[in-house]
């Protein structure tokens, strides 16, 4: 396996790194607040691109496959997935989001609390990694936790799909920040898995729409003890 030397960060990459992590966290928080699916899909696209930029910045010694990897990331997470979600939303005219389980104000407070938890957990990880980008690991963890919160509070099927992808973006970001990204084969494998999961969930949403005439998941509670 290639050993990644400690990166002598040029000012441009540091700047790119900072904006990308900032964008990631910002989009995650905004998702908590946005109600409509189209808006959420847009934010998801932005977050995908930010993740791609982040992986680009963290891997600056220019092996060709790293660049291809970042491009693939940008394409799938930035463009394909949000497009699929938007197309399904338009076809099933499920554009507006019902009231989430937790109203946005408490959502924000919870997000703040989760970020502090992420920092508490993230700091020992940050100090332990030799990498310079280690300091930003808590941001990755924060995105994961906020993604989880969004998932737990969204009633809308498409909202839950978006939240799932946000969780995955968070994990990808942590991977890049903590360990400079996983080996290429694993990275591609994970990406395809996430894509397949999104496709499966979209097909299921389409069927639920046909079967239950509404895509509000909280109405689906017949399976109980």
């Amino acid at each position: 396996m290639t050993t990644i030397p400690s990166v002598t960060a040029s000012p441009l990459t540091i700047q790119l790194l900072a904006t990308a992590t900032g964008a990631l966290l910002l989009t995650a928080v905004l998702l908590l607040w946005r109600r409509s699916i189209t808006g959420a899909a847009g934010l998801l696209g932005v977050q995908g691109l930010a993740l791609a930029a982040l992986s680009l910045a963290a891997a600056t010694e220019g092996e060709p496959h790293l660049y291809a990897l970042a491009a693939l990331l940008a394409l799938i997470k930035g463009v394909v997935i949000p497009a699929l979600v938007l197309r399904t939303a338009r076809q099933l005219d499920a554009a507006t989001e019902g009231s989430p389980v937790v109203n946005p104000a408490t959502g924000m407070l919870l997000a703040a609390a989760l970020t502090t938890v992420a920092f508490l957990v993230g700091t020992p990880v940050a100090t332990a990694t030799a990498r310079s980008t280690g300091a930003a690991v808590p941001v990755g963890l924060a995105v994961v936790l906020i993604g989880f919160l969004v998932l737990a509070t969204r009633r809308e099927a498409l909202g839950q799909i978006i939240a799932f992808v946000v969780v995955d973006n968070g994990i990808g970001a942590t991977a890049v920040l903590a360990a400079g990204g996983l080996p290429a084969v694993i990275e591609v494998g994970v990406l395809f898995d996430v894509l397949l999961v999104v496709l499966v969930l979209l097909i299921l949403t389409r069927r639920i729409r046909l079967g239950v005439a509404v895509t509000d998941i909280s109405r689906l509670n017949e399976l109980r003890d």
Partner: protein
Amino acid sequence: MNVFQWAVIALVLSFFVATAAAVGAPTPRLRNILAGVAAMALGVSGTATGVAALTGDTTILLLATPLPGMTLSWHATALGGFFAAVSGVVVVICALYGIGYAHGPAASRTGWSAFAAFGLGMQLVPLAGDVVTFLIAWEVMAIGSSVLVLSDHAHRPGVRKAGLWYAVMTHLSFLLLAAGLGIAAASAGSTSFYAIATTPPTGEVAALAFVLALVGFATKAGAVPVHIWLPRAHPEAPSHVSALMSAVMVKMGIYGAMLLTTRLFPNGPSWWALLVLGLGIPSALYGILQASVASDLKRLLAYSTTENVGLILIALAIAMLTRPTRPGISAVALIAVFLLVVSHAAFKTTLFLAAGSILHGTGERDLDRMGGLAVRMPVTAIALAVGSLGAAALPATSGFVAEWSLLQSLIHADSRTDRLTTAILPFVMGVVALTAGLALLTFTKAFGIATLARPRTANAAAAHEGSRSMRLAMLLAAAGVVAVGVIPGVLVRAISPVLPEVARPTAYSAGLVLPGAQASLDPTALALLALAVTLPLVTTGWLLARRVPRQQVAMGWGCGGVRTSPRMQYTATSYAEPLVRIFDDALAPTRDVRVTHAEESRFTVRAMAYSQRVVDVVEARGYAPVVRALTRLGDRGRSLQNGSIHRYLASSFGALLLVLLGVLG
């Protein structure tokens, strides 16, 4: 290959032959014979293993298992040999009885294979050499008996509930034993009994292991308060199976208790003996009280098993209490334990087989619906008589000899040094005496109401005797009761290897000699004396009869005139009425009187219905609340899974946060 190994091979072989015969035989009739004979072979080989182990054979058989570091082992010990021999003999008698008696589900393929498994389990338990083998044999016994208890599920509504109670209580005993013996094995380093015996745990580890294992064994033995499965499961099982369960399976619990007290933890503190006594006394009193008021014959016999287990535990407790200060008396108490085990096995088998024969002949289990069976079923009546005499511990029966030795140990157990024993002795003496008195009433009622006077129902009037194999089995068992009663010395000499040295009989004598208590009893001489007294009376009676012939009269005294119908005779319920009234706080009978008034005025009564039910108060107050609590827990627990995906995600999210924070610390 010595006798023990051959016998074990024969045991396992006859098990497979029995199962093959059970499954292979086409008609129930043929299956009864084939599987019955194979089961008798199993019993005989079981007795052979017991006798081999009893006469000093100490071979060890090993069997590998797929798990590394765990091998199953069978170890021939004198104590195990004794119990294997007793169970072997009873298996033979019950299988012989089963040939004629088994019908319907008991004679089905599963019925006979379960019987074979049950027999095998009971033979393997006393021979097991380590904790794991012991518990596996324990479960083989459990599955065999559970299937047999459930065999009549299509005919009576109570069978399924009884089977469930039985299965759960047996599993409770299994898990208690796994915990108790597991703790002991853990502290001794290896699971073999030999290792636990050589390096027994000490302090509170030993106490915890002892208490858990003892309660586990008490559950199987049917001691109060863990006895509630016994009066439910025994009446529902086929009679030859309930005879086997009462006479032998319950004794496996006693074998376990003796294993704990004499082999694994021989010199425990004195509060252990008080714990055993604390299990023994309520079992004896409560068991016989419930038996004396029970009107269902098999339920009566089941509760009498609890009573006898109580007496055995009392004898064991006395043996433990007096071991440090007076070893001689402790040996006498141990002889009493062994005699009680054998005598109960003998007379309880006789009684259950007789009850089975009555059920077969009249289709009745309730004493209130029997009567006059002595004329219609002479052999069964004789068996019931001998069994009842044995159970009431009256002279010339095994019960008398056993209770005599128990009382000898009680009388001579007082010692100046140990204040504790001397203080509780009179109380224990009173309990044993009251139990014997109530047993007298119970079995006079059982024998008198069932066999004497006029039949109370048409079924009883149309009673017919069982088949030949049933009669032979009953007479064999009854002969056992009388044999042990008349020549106990032979039995004590046969089981002498099990007894401690000081109690081993030196001279050969038919009677019972207890060196520890300087007391001896020769029941044969007592019988001869009785005969000597009876002969002149019979001759004078015969002479009088020749001069003044007897005259048959149609009607007994019916206060002048009215034709007394058989239903006016006393029934089992009315016979026990005084006792229900005296011990009503212990029995808590539920009485209710429903009065239907005439329409026109409240003060004229059209009809009145009185019903009284004696329910097992231990179960009503102890177990029913637990069952209700569990069902409430189950219902409330279901709200945990209420179908909302948000609650599920929240629980996963909560777990994630907890782990993150937990790992931080």
